[in-house]
């Protein structure tokens, strides 16, 4: 009896933890663990949303980012876009409720995935400053602009509306958000400046106007009018699901027959394959999906994994594309040589993905230090946790010596180079919710290495040619210095006039120059 009473006691303290409360205590999981990083995260979440929104309505993004410093460790982050705006009813939910969004339930390449980002920023603002987040939004010049001031009710994970009114806003459509937070502004590799710069490189179709707290203004103009083609939503591929997920899909499907379920709820299963799967599972094609018991589901799951099914379609992916990536690099990185590669789509656990690599070499890049590695996923820069990331592993384990860079062991190479690696996928496997490092899947690392090697080969051709050409020039220069020496010695030996010899040798040098180059095998 006493045990029972204790259990009742315990039950009094047991209650649901809201996601907002969870975040409150575990903000590091979302990347808000220190003031410097938090500032970057807030900018990032807002900009991600803006870019995704513009992509959805096929508009060339123009995004303004402003950081206003209130005092030493307090900032207002303002991000404004020319996107589609948000309908009035949805504004509180999008900004004031964690895990609310259109992205989590679909398989489609987008910057955010979980619908956690921007509301986490709102929550962080509330937590560190007690202030509300201000949102302006307009969906059409014909409609009024809406203004909200929001907070989050952390117990209920519900938006708390403090202000809701129509305002005059001089913008045809778009969204603007103002978030006041505690943060710290620093320059360097993990700064907002770097985030904006990298974002501009991999979004060459977007214009960014960025005002730093020090009132510096950076304008990153778009270099192409070509919009990234809109990523299509795809159905799950049988190889990428787990048993529990399959059972859930069986319960939730609208299809009345098992065959219909397989054909409509998965990608790459046609009539023939569906029949084959039913046969192999010893299930009737017209079986009701909801009627499958656990054992049957398990058999079906196994058969799905064993049946030969085409790789998922890749039109759900929207890579940057090699030539645009090169343009992006060229506008932001001053180098002598650029090489870019876009690989063909590949698959990990039923999820299609594409790896792209860009290398910049020479120019203003620092000569004697480790190369700069830019890691990006679905066009979002990853600035933290470089050491834990599969991209870093792939770069380190590629043998750069043969491509003309220095490298000791499996370390990052050394030389005047920048290596950018971008992964596009409907579902990028991050190591944590902070989305800063890519998980180490063999299939992904293999593709990364192949892409790096492809670019490496182009780099190696350039370096070897370039160095050879420089040596060549130096050697030709040497002949001019050798000539007086030879003239002297010959004159000494024979009594012939030195000046005449020198002049004749100079003329000969001009004649022999093309042969000199040919001798070294330099291409012409």
């Amino acid at each position, binding site marked *: 009896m006493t045990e029972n009473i204790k259990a009742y006691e315990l039950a009094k303290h047991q209650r649901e933890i809201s996601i907002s409360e969870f975040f409150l205590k575990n903000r590091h999981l979302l990347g808000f663990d220190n003031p410097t990083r938090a500032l970057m995260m807030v900018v990032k979440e807002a900009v991600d949303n803006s870019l995704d929104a513009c992509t959805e309505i096929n508009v060339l993004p123009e995004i303004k980012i402003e950081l206003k410093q209130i005092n030493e460790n307090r900032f207002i982050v303002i991000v404004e876009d020319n996107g589609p705006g948000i309908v009035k009813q949805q504004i509180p939910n999008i900004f004031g409720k964690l895990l609310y969004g259109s992205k989590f339930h679909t398989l489609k390449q987008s910057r955010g995935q979980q619908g956690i980002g921007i509301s986490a920023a709102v929550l962080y603002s509330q937590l560190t400053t007690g202030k509300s987040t201000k949102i302006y939004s307009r969906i059409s010049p014909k409609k009024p602009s809406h203004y909200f001031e929001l907070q989050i009710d952390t117990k209920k994970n519900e938006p708390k509306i403090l202000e809701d009114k129509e305002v005059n806003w001089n913008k045809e459509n778009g969204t603007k958000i103002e978030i006041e937070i505690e943060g710290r502004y620093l320059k360097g590799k993990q700064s907002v400046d770097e985030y904006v710069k990298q974002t501009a490189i991999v979004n060459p179709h977007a214009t960014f106007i960025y005002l730093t707290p020090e009132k510096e203004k950076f304008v990153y103009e778009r270099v192409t009018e070509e919009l990234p083609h809109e990523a299509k939503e795809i159905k799950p591929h049988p190889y990428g699901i787990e048993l529990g997920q399959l059972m859930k899909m069986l319960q939730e499907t609208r299809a009345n027959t098992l065959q219909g379920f397989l054909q409509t709820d998965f990608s790459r299963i046609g009539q023939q394959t569906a029949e084959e799967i039913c046969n192999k599972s010893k299930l009737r094609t017209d079986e009701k999906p909801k009627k499958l018991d656990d054992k049957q589901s398990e058999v079906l799951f196994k058969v799905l994994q064993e049946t030969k099914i085409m790789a998922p379609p890749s039109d759900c992916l929207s890579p940057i594309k090699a030539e645009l990536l090169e343009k992006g690099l060229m506008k932001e990185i001053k180098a002598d040589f650029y090489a870019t590669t876009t690989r063909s789509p590949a698959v990990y656990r039923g999820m299609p993905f594409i790896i792209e690599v860009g290398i910049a070499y020479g120019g203003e890049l620092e000569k004697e230090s480790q190369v700069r590695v830019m890691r990006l996923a679905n066009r979002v820069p990853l600035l933290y946790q470089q050491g834990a990331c599969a991209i870093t592993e792939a770069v380190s384990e590629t043998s750069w010596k043969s491509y003309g860079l220095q490298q000791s062991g499996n370390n990052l190479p050394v030389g005047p180079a920048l290596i950018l690696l971008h992964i596009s996928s409907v579902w990028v496997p991050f190591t944590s919710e902070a989305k800063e490092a890519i998980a180490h899947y063999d299939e992904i690392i293999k593709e990364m290495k192949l892409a790096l090697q492809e670019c490496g080969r182009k780099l190696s051709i350039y370096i070897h040619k370039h160095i050879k050409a420089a040596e060549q020039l130096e*050697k030709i*220069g*040497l*002949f001019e*210095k*050798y000539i*007086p*020496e*030879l003239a002297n*010695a*010959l004159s*000494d*030996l*024979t009594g*012939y006039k030195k000046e005449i*010899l020198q002049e*004749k*040798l100079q*003329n*000969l*040098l001009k*004649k*022999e120059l093309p*042969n*000199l180059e040919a*001798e*070294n095998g330099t291409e012409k």
Partner: protein
Amino acid sequence: MAQKNKTGDDLKELGNKVIKDIEKNKNPSIEVPIRALSNVIFNQKTKTLELGNKKSIRHFFNVAHAKKFLQTVEIASISKNLLGEGKHASLRDVFYMAKRTISGTNVNLVDEQSESDDIIEDLELITGNSREQLNINANKNGSVVGRVTIEDSDDTIRWDKLGSGGWSIPSNVENIKLKKVDAKYIIYMEKAAVWERLNEDKFWDKQNCILLSSQGQTTRGIRRLLQRMYEEFKLPIYVLCDYDAYGFYIYSVLKYGSINLAHASEHMAIPSIKYLGITSSDIEKYDLKKHFIKLKDHDLARLKQIAEYEWFKNNKAWQKEIKMMKQYGSKAEIQALSSKGISFISNTYLPEKIKNKDFLE
């Protein structure tokens, strides 16, 4: 004087050929006979090495040749000046006379003496004059003792009256007159320390022979002196070397000529020379195994090269020596004999070997 003029003309001729090319607006070139194993012929009749006819052409306007081309002309001009002034320079002197940084560059005309030494050997072949005729001498190296009287620059010298140091052999022995020789044979040894031991023991006096040594490589002066003593007095010559590939090669050079100076074999090779020791039978007989030194990779590589030389290839006795050394995997120094007593070499080893005619050929 006539020779000096001829050598000077030969050098000038080299320069004139180059100028002719320049006047014809041709890439200036110099023909240089190749001094390498690929261009060395073993003359079965004379049993000496000869240089073949292969030539390489050195061009000025060629990235790979330019510096050597310049060095060749420069050193030819240095030699011509020496001849003109009637002075001799050492190899080292010539290196310093040529060494300088070419103005406006960070390139030195010569970086190391081996480069200028190499060019001097080329010049011998290009002009057909020996180094001595070019008025360039090597460092003197080597000592000799024995009952011999010579005349050198108007001085009369007795080799048996020079105490513990003996007579030091100059690099050029052409002008030395061998007046009187009282000896039954000559022993040449590669180690100066062994020579000193034998001299202290008055081995030459007791055995009535001549003892001659260098330190390491046998210089041209020593080879010339040995050849002259052989040719003028018909003295047998025995070679005493370490039991290793390099010792074998010293013997090979004395007997057949060297690959590098194959063009000069005629004046230096002594086909009748005999190898006295150390041999593998000495190793067994005198129980020298405990003083073995393990062969290194470079020893084995050298041994392999030597085994394949045409003049060793069909020589059963030498092939056996080489095979034994490989089997031992070891080499031994002459001084290993000292383990039997400091004067074992002079009291026992050499007298026994010579009495029994225990030689290798």
